C-alpha cells in the first residue's frame, strides 16, 4: 500500500498561497485556523525561498506520543489522523509538533482551547467515509474519493507534491537530475531575468 507523503520543492514555490486558500475552502476550516501555510525565508533578499508546510504525517509523530487521551491514529497509508470526539483540547500536540500543524479554535475565556484541528491529508477522520459527520468535523475525504490532497492538486508551479512517497520521490529525483544537482543553476531568478546574482 502506498505511503502518503508531502514534499515542497523550495525552488519552485512562488508563495502564491493557493494551497492555503484551497485547503481552507475545501474543508471549511474553522475561523482562525489554517491547516497549511507558506513560510518565506529571507523574504525580499536575493536568496529568498518559500516553503509550504502542513502536517507532515510523521512515522513517529510527537503529537501522537504526547496525547494524554491517545486520540491519534495512523492509517495504513501513513496518514496521521485524530478523533475529535476523544480530543480534550489540552494543547500538548501543539507544544510537541515541530511544524506547528495542530491548532485550536478558541472556546471560552482565558484562551480555553476547543477540539484540535489539523491537516488530514484530505483523508477525513474516523467517521464513515464522506458522511456528513466527517465533513462537519474534518472536511472532505478526497482520498476515499480516489483523489489526492487539494493543496497539491491546485499548486500552480507543481512545487507541492502529495501522494505515494515512491512516486513523489521519483518526480523530485528527476527534477534534481535535470537541474544538474545545483538548484541555483536551474530556473529561478537567473533564468527569468538573465542577471547574475
Amino acid at each position, binding site marked *: 500500500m502506498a505511503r502518503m507523503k508531502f514534499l515542497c520543492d*523550495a*525552488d519552485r514555490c512562488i*508563495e502564491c*498561497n493557493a494551497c*492555503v486558500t484551497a485547503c481552507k475552502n475545501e474543508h471549511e476550516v474553522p475561523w*482562525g*485556523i*489554517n491547516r497549511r*501555510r*507558506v*513560510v*518565506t*525565508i*529571507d*523574504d525580499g533578499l*536575493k*536568496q529568498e*525561498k518559500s*516553503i509550504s*508546510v502542513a502536517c507532515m504525517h510523521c512515522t513517529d509523530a*510527537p503529537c501522537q*506520543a*504526547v*496525547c*494524554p*487521551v*491517545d*486520540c491519534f491514529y495512523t492509517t495504513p497509508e501513513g496518514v496521521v489522523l485524530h*478523533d475529535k*470526539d*476523544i*480530543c*480534550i*483540547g*489540552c*494543547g500538548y500536540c*501543539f*507544544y*510537541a*509538533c*515541530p*511544524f*506547528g500543524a495542530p*491548532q485550536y479554535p*478558541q472556546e471560552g475565556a*482565558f*484562551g*480555553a*482551547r476547543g477540539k484540535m484541528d489539523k491537516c488530514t491529508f484530505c483523508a477525513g477522520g474516523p467517521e464513515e467515509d464522506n458522511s456528513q459527520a466527517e465533513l462537519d468535523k474534518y472536511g472532505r475525504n478526497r482520498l476515499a474519493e480516489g483523489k489526492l490532497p487539494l493543496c497539491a492538486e491546485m499548486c500552480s508551479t507543481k512545487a507541492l507534491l502529495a501522494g505515494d512517497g515512491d512516486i513523489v520521490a521519483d518526480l523530485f529525483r528527476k527534477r534534481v537530475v535535470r537541474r544538474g544537482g*545545483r*538548484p*541555483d543553476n536551474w530556473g529561478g531568478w537567473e533564468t527569468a531575468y538573465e542577471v547574475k546574482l
Partner: protein
Amino acid sequence: MAVADSLNKRKKMMLWSGIVILLAIIILPMSGYLVTGYEPNQQYQTDVENPRSDTWRQVRRGNEGYTAVTGQEANELIQSSGETWRQVRNGPMATYGSWLMGFVLLAILAFYVMRGRVELTHPRTGETVERWTLNERRLHWTTAILFILLTITGLSILYGRAVLIPLMGYPGFSLYATGAKFLHNALGPVFMIALFAILVKFFRHNFFNKVDLEWFKAYGGMVGDKHPSAGRMNGGEKVWYWALATAGIALCFSGLVLDFPNFGQERQVIQLAHVIHLTTALILIAFSFGHIYIGTIGTEGALEGMTTGRVDVAWAEQHHDLWLQEIREKNASSSDRSD
C-alpha cells in the same frame, strides 16, 4: 691544544648543521603556501555561497521567516524543542516520577511495618491546649483538599493514557479527562491563593534554629525512643513548609503559564513551564505522602490537632515541648495580669 681546537670546531659544525636541518624540516613542508597563498580560500568561497543550504540551515535553527497566515508562531517553519519536550516528558519524567512516588510509598509502608505508629509515651491527661485556630484549620483543609484534587487530576493527565484507558476505554477516559482538565485549570489558581495565604500565615514560625538540628539528629523521634525538643513547628514541618515555599511557588507560577494561553506565550516557554510544573508537582506529591502519613496513622494524636484544633497536653509535651512551655508561660502571665 690543536686537537682540542679541531674538536671544538667539529662540535660547532655539528650544532649548526643540526639547526639547519631542523629549520628545513619545519619550513620546507610549508612551501605549498607559496602557491595557495596567492589565491586565498577562493575555492571554498563558492561552496559557502550555496543559497539553499543557508535556507535549510535557517529552517533547522527555527529562524523566523515571513508568512501571510496569521497565527501563533506561524512564521517559524520548524521548532525542534517540542521533540525534546516529548522525550523528556514521556521518558525520564514519567518514568522516574512513578518510581519516586512508588519508592516513597514503599518506604512509608516498610517504616510502618517495622516501627509502627509513634504512640503516646505518657497516658492522655484529658487536659487539652489549642494547637490550630479555626482559621488555620480552614486554610489547611482548603489547601489540602485542593492539593489532593489537583494531584488526582494532574496525574490522570500524565499517567491516565497508560493506566486508565485500559480500564475506562477511550470515550470513557476522554470524558473523565475533559472534566479533569477543566477542574485542574479552574482549581489551580484557587490553590495558588490558598497556598500563598498559608505560606504568609506560617512564615514566622518556620525559621530553622539549633533546636531543629538536634531534632534532625534524633530523626524527629521517629526512630528510637528519644523525644527531641521542638517549638510550635518541628524540623520536619519546617522542611515541608520550605518545600512548599520553593517548589510550591514554582509549581504555581509555571501552572499559570500553562493555564492562560491567551497571553500568546511561545511554545518554548510553555514546554519549559511544563517541565518545571511536572518536576515540582512530582516532588511535592512524594513529600505529601510523608506529610499525610505522619499526620494521620503515623502519629497517635496528631490528626485531632488539625480536626478539632486541640491536642492533649501529653501529646504536646512529647512532640512540641518548647511550644507547650511557651503557651504555659503566656497563660501564666496573662492570668497574672487578670488577677
